[in-house]
């Protein structure tokens, strides 16, 4: 049993590392606090002879240990924020210049619609190829920047590729542009992560990641299929 699904995109490992970093801080916080709690419960259990301490924490001398705890937490918090910022920037704030493949992925009750650019290589032109059926499989090349235009036609959906740590909502009226680069071939499930109605749990498509040549062959077949 692995805690995480296999990490297959360029930023997936960074996210896993971030998880372990937070786990380190959270675990330290948890064990220290629980340790003090259990120690106090055992050490200061009731006895008629015991004279309890009477400090109220109103002076800094008494308060310093709590202040130290808060300062440590603040340090941990800001270290996490500092550490994660590069990943955030990479994922969210910068879409790479060279778009090797630009696909529109549109949520619909209850499957994903994929729009591939036609032979002219441009999206949103007349020769776009649209794949619109439940459980369909699309193919994308490995080691390439794949840019998704995430859209929705009815309710809010959410594209979730758990192996790629890729999840963005599809909001009606907005086009959200995000990118991903896979570095391991395979067939990955595309899950909808936002409640979208009755058949939410059956909303499933696949993404097949494969080498450039195989992908090109599939794309040619796709174009040929529409030309019929």
């Amino acid at each position, binding site marked *: 049993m692995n805690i*995480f699904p296999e990490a297959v995109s360029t930023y997936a490992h960074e996210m896993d590392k971030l998880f372990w970093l937070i786990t380190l801080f959270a675990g330290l916080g948890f064990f220290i606090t629980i340790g003090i709690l259990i120690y106090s419960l055992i050490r200061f259990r009731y006895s008629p002879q015991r004279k309890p301490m009477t400090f*109220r924490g109103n002076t800094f001398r008494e308060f310093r240990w*709590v202040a130290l705890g*808060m300062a440590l937490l603040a340090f941990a918090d800001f270290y996490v*924020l500092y550490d994660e910022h590069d990943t955030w920037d990479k994922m*969210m704030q910068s879409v790479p210049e060279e778009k090797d493949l630009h696909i529109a992925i549109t949520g619909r009750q209850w499957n994903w619609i994929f729009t591939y650019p036609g032979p002219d290589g441009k999206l949103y032109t007349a020769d776009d190829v649209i794949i619109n059926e439940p459980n369909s499989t699309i193919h994308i090349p490995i080691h390439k920047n794949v840019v998704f235009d995430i859209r929705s036609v009815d309710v809010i959906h959410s594209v979730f590729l758990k192996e790629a740590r890729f999840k963005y909502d599809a909001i009606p009226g907005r086009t959200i542009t995000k990118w991903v680069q896979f570095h391991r071939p395979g067939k990955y*499930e595309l899950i909808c*992560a936002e409640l*979208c109605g009755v058949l939410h*749990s059956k909303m499933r498509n696949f993404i097949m990641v494969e080498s450039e040549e195989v992908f090109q062959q599939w794309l040619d077949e796709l174009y040929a299929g529409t030309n019929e």
Partner: protein
Amino acid sequence: MATHTQSFWTKYIFSQDHKVIGAQYLIVGLIMAAVAGFFAYVFRYHLAYPDAEIPLWGTLDPRTYNMLVTTHGALMIFWVAMPILVAAIGNFLIPTMLGTDDMAFPFLNMLSFWVFFLSAVVVVTSLFVPGGGFDGGWTLYPPLSADAYLNTNPDFWKALFSGGSLVILALALEFASMLMGGINFMVTTINKRARGMSFSRMPILVWFMNFSVVTFMFSVGPVIAGALMLLLDRVAGTGFYDAYRGGDPILFQHLFWFFGHPEVYVLLFPTLGVMGEIIPTFARKPLFGYKFIIGASIVAIILSMVVWAHHQFVAGINPYMAVFFSVGTILISIPFAGIILSYVATIFGGNIRLELPMWWAVGFLATFLIGGLTGLYLGSNTFDIYAHDTSFVVAHFHYTLFPITFFGFFAAFYYWFPKYAGRMYNDFLGKLHFWGTFIFFQLFALPIFFLGLNGQPRRMADYTAFETLMQDWHIQFREIATISAILLILTQFIWLYNFIVSLWKGKRVSSDNPWQANTLEWQAPSPPPHGNFEVYPEVYRDPYTFGVVQVNGTKRDFIPQNEKLPS
């Protein structure tokens, strides 16, 4: 005090006595908890055994599953946690702790309960209307919840008597009721304190109750406006949330979470207040950092108004903005950490009597700590992209809201039961109840963390469609969670038995102050009569004067607030 005769109706039903109203809130809250708990049993069972027939229910289709999940969430937050933690505990304790006879506006208090009762009736009705109950998630995200969104001219009455509209109406009624109650709490606190009780001598629970209602009052406005617009979208066919008519679905998410996040603190504050009373009493030691706790709470309230968008990191919000909200979210952990550490510091160095309420307090601290610390993962905007909408979130908020609601309530219940019932509960059954609840809750929620980290999305009727979510250990973990959840629910029957039997047959308390606490409610008779006190007390000191002292030649370790020492 008041000796005038009351009929059955004015004494128990349309009562203006704060204690009876508190009991009414409690009973309605517990009934709703039973309903919501039963729903939880049904859909947990379905998750563990997707094809099996569910005992006491039958088969479950995806639509009903969504409806049950939605209703479970809405009921637990708005019709269980809110009435029990805020309304019931507040009504029972605020006037007695302040040493006065009743709330500032007894009639408004009664009205507030009956509006709440009406809202409970409406929300239960919404399950049975034609078309079925609401199934769009308790967060009511449009366009899914505004399912009339395609229709510019819906049938008004049909749309009004659909599940979703009734849930929104019930919410509106509930908010109105809580606003009335909240105003009542604040006015009572400000104008009806006992003689000599300055703000710095108020019990911390009264402070926290007021923080709770202030947070509620100042954050609920946007969601009321938003919910009205959603209702109009459903029944009148407007396009406030319709992207094709200029509206924006994100708008509702902002308005909802502007309230939704502070709502967690609305629920957390009363529980922190309960712990702030129980821990010093059983540790026989003054509360650590009274002023600090108050200041930290005020900081937390202010911060809580600017962190809401961390629920929307993946929801297409401006990524630059998300960084600000992430910073705010992570900052807000610091005052709460300070409060929890202050409680731990109160326990440290005391003379700890491990009575039952103290067990619940310690159990709360330990469990809530996990809930709070897992908030770090979700507050970090980057990791949230992965963890959002997975079971990790589910486990996180169960780890926060379950201890808040149930550990908080049971701690308060066992602590104040001798006062308000005049009888003692059965200690052995209480301990059994505590350990059952504590252990089964951990076993229920811990596996869900791991399922979530492995990418299991929430709100899925079943996972059978996804091969990667149906590995052996996934199935086993779901089973463990389900069985523990069922045992957790069954454990509560021990409490119910204990409650009912102790209420009529329990041993009468020999003293009005069985825990030797300092606050004013322990100076009233048990149970307090209408009007609470025989002689209205005057306050001479703060409520946390513990530690061994000589009083009139006898040695004891507490001095009640209203005891005048010979100087």
